[in-house]
Every structure is written in C-alpha cells, then in structure tokens.
C-alpha cells in the first residue's frame, strides 16, 4: 500500500462575504499517492491555484479536511522543507536586487541547520548543471539579465538544490515558448526519476498534462468533474468540460475553427 501524500475529504474553500461570497474549491475529495505525477487541468478561474495553495499550506480549508501525510498542515516551515513549488512567472519569484546565485544559496535557509558553505556551493553548482546551465553563465547575474526561459530553469534549479519530496508546479510552462516547454518537461521527468518526487502539475493545456502525468484531474468551477489515467480521460472523456478542453486545443490534424 502506497502512502498517501495528500488526502482531501469534502474540502471547501470560499472567499468573501455577502455579495462577494464565492466558493473557489467546492466539496473536493481526492488523494495523491507517493511517487505519482498528478495533473490538475482546467480553464482560468476553476480553482486550480487555490487548491495548489492549500497543498502548500497557504490556505486552510473553510470546511472539510485536508491532510498531508495523515496530518493537517500546521508548521509552515516544516511543511516547506518537504513540499516546494514552481510558479508561473519566474520574474516575480526572485528578488531583483540580489544575484541569482545568492538567492539559490539562500534557499538553504529553510533547513534547521545549514550545510557547510562549501557543500552549499557544490550543491548549487550541481543543481545548475542539472538544468543545463553552466555555473559560469549566471555568475554575478541578476534576474533581469536572463531570459524568461533561463529564469524558469533557475526556479527548477532551486528545486534541484532543495530536493523536496513533493513539488507543486503551478503552470510552469505557460510563459515560455514551445522549445523551452519541452525542455522544462524533460527536467520535471528527470526530477521524478532521479529524486522519485511526487509532482502535482497544474496546467490548462490537457495535451501537456497527458504527456507527463500518471493521473489527470479535470476541474471546473471548483469541482473535480473527472479523474482517471490520461489515456482513459483523453480517449473516452465522460464530462462535457473535458470534451471542451480537448476540443479547444488547436491541433494540427484536426478541424478547429472554420474561417469564413
């Protein structure tokens, strides 16, 4: 029996009061097992990112239970030693006033006891090489001096530095072009194989999710409307929202929108 990493039962998260009241995550029940890659797929505003923040312990559920390894998330720092994330916009994740290298090194601050300076330097070097960046290329550079694709790789390098057990990847490829996207997916697969990491991959592109994941969750308006292995979900979708998501991808071989 595999360990359950996340276990949510009738989980609800709502925001606001009165007129502005809205439910972002609506009565969700699911579990994510150790070593799995699970994709959350859905359009804008379907509650994907709120669910991601719950996994990071940034939001508590309004009602229902949300457990990490059988316990509710209480100590953030301890939680983040094991669960880390990659976000959509790498430029807003790094401080503009410090060099990238110093920020990668600062990531060790999450540990109770920092490793020795020499070991930290070594691990940063190794992490940079893991994402195909020569350490000399980013030596003394600030975030704004690198391109979007390079910055996204720096975020992933941070994950290689920390080696968490769980990674929440919130749309890591939506800001980069197709070439870099293929690259980043490669690194994600590498993380899974080398560090046997559990990855929660959040995206709006079902094609991408299909390629990387062991299991797909299709979300719509705060609910998980369909879940299952990617082959099953994409070849015989049961929910209309899944059909919609599949149809909206501009595929080369399929009729998409007719031009008048």
């Amino acid at each position: 029996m595999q360990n359950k990493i996340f276990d949510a039962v009738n989980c609800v998260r709502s925001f606001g009061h009165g007129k502005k009241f809205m439910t972002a995550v609506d009565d969700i029940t699911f579990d994510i097992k150790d070593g799995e890659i699970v994709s959350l797929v859905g359009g804008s505003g379907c509650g994907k990112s709120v669910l991601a923040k719950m996994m990071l312990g940034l939001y508590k559920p309004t009602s229902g239970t949300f457990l990490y390894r059988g316990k509710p998330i209480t100590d953030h720092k301890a939680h983040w030693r094991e669960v880390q994330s990659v976000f959509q916009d790498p430029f807003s994740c790094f401080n503009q006033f410090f060099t990238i290298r110093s920020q990668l090194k600062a990531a060790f601050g999450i540990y109770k006891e920092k490793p020795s300076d020499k070991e930290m330097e070594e691990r940063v070097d190794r992490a940079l090489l893991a994402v195909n960046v020569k350490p000399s290329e980013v030596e003394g550079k600030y975030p704004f001096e690198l391109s979007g694709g390079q910055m996204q790789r720096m975020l992933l390098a941070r994950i290689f530095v920390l080696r968490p057990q769980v990674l929440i990847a919130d749309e890591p490829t939506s800001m980069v072009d197709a070439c870099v996207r293929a690259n980043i997916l490669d690194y994600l697969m590498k993380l899974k194989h080398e560090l046997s990491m559990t990855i929660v991959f959040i995206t709006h592109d079902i094609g991408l999710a299909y390629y990387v994941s062991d299991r797909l969750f299709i979300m719509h308006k705060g609910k998980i409307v369909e879940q299952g292995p990617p082959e099953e979900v994409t070849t015989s979708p049961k929910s209309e929202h899944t059909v919609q998501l599949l149809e909206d991808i501009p595929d080369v071989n399929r009729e998409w929108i007719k031009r008048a």
Partner: protein
Amino acid sequence: MSVIFEVENLSLHYLTRFGNKIHAVNDVSFTMEQGEILGIAGESGCGKSTLVNGLMGLFIPPLHPTSGDVRVGGESLMNRSPKDIRQNVLSRKVSMIPQGAFNALNPVRKVKDIAADVMAAHMKGMDRKHIYERLKERFDLFGMETDKVLNSYPIQLTAGERQRSVIGISTLLNPQMVIADEPTSALDVTTQKVVIKLIFELLEKKIFSTMIFITHELPLLRHVADNIAIMYAGQIVEKGTAEQVVFDPRHPYTKALMGAMLSADAEQKTRKPTAIEGAPPNLAKPISGCRFAERCPSVKPECKNREQVIRIVGERQVRCEYAE
C-alpha cells in the same frame, strides 16, 4: 489582389549604452496581399517583437533601423519621427494588438475612456457623446455585455474580456493592417478560442482584412494563417503556405520546432517532444555562416563558414542550401 504591405531587406539593431550594436532583425523581406494572414513563428528572443516595432516604423531608442524599407500601400514608413508615425500611421494604417492585455490598458481609466481617447486623438472635433455611441456599436460585435465592459476598469474584467477589449480598441479606426503580437499566449485554451473566433468575425465583417499574427504556437498558426514565416536569430528561415510549413517542413529548424510540439492525440503519446539543444547565437557579435549551424542536427562542416541565403525549395522559401 493587390500588394498592400512590402518589407524589403529590413535590418534593425539595438544600440546599447556601451555603444554595442545588437542586430536583432537581419535581412527580412516579404510582401503581403490584401486579405492575407501571415503567421510569424519562432522561439523567444528570435526578434519577433522587434520586427513588429520595425513594421510599424516606430523607432524609439535604443531601437534603430539599419537598412531596408517598409511600405504600406506604397507609402514608406522609414525615417519618420515617432510623433508623425503615431499621428498618421498607427491605428489607421497599421494597428497593433499587444501581447499582455493587462499592461496595455491604463488601470485607472475605464475601458470606454481609453477607447474614446484613441478616437478623439484621430478624429478632431468629434464630441464625447458621439464617440461613446460609436464605441457601443463596435463593442456590440464582440459578444460581451457591452455596457458592463465599457464602464469597467481593466482590473474588473476577466482576461478574455480584457484581450477582446484591446482588440476592439486596436481596430476602432478600421486599420488597413493589423499586427497581432502573441494576442493569445497569456490565455487558457478556451479563452484563446474565443479570442480567435472574434478575430475571424472582425475579418468577416471587413473591419480589417490583412493581418500579421505572431505566436510561438505552430499548431495555432496552422488554423489561423494562410502563410507562415519561421524566424530564427533575426532571420526568416522558411516561408510558405501554412500546410507546407506545418506538414512538410524543409528547414532543419522548422523540423526541430515541429518536433517540440505536443498534442493530446493517442498516437502522439509514444512520440516524445524533443527540445532543441543549445541556445541561439549571440546577436551582438558578427556571425559568419549559418546561424542555426550550432544546433542543427544535420550540420555539415562547411555550414559554419557559409552565409545562407533564401532559395526556393518545393515552392517555398528556405534559408538552407541543403534543404530538399
């Protein structure tokens, strides 16, 4: 069919603080006919967005033209002041749909005021009430709640509504040419489809007829564009009809780019998307020989020394002497 837009050997460079020149666009030539949709694709940093500024004739330092000419309906856009370009060319002759809709809209003004300013600037003497009426007419085409959108601040709208408003504002004065710079890359697939549908509707209603559509999503271009030009390191490396480029690419770079695409098809699961190794060349240094040679899977020893020129292969333009 008449030629409406001509670009002739256009080269552009950025002048840095230290006096270095970065040659972002190099020797780009193409012509467009009335009613044509040209797609331009390429990876980040290949000069797509720089080319857009050049095509509008809008040279704001550090961007400078090196050589070449851009003509809209026979009228040259080169060597004109930004003020002249803004008054006489933008919005009416050439209009641009920018990339990030959120950055393009003034956050402290209502959508109707942003749009009205555009009209007021170009049509002197029109009163505000009249302008609002015309705006309402135009925005009614967009399948949104017109009153709500026009009276909202940008932050109150969804990403799709914002992008549609931006398209509406860009096409208010019925421009001859529209240049769309990644209009959908910040949107999810469902919203993307809505925006593309709107563009097609505007084309059908003859609001504008000729468009350059810039994106890095080749599968999307296949559905949107008539012709596709692929850019690499500031040059066009292949140009042909959408079918030719997508289904039968000839240039090694186009082939590699198609290899990096993903799809949800069952047959595609076995095919791994392959990234192109390495990085594009540094455009600040002079480059001799083929620009793709460093990363080309079928590179020949002489490629690094021989500058490649456009030649016709299988009824399309390819910048590679070994393409068949």
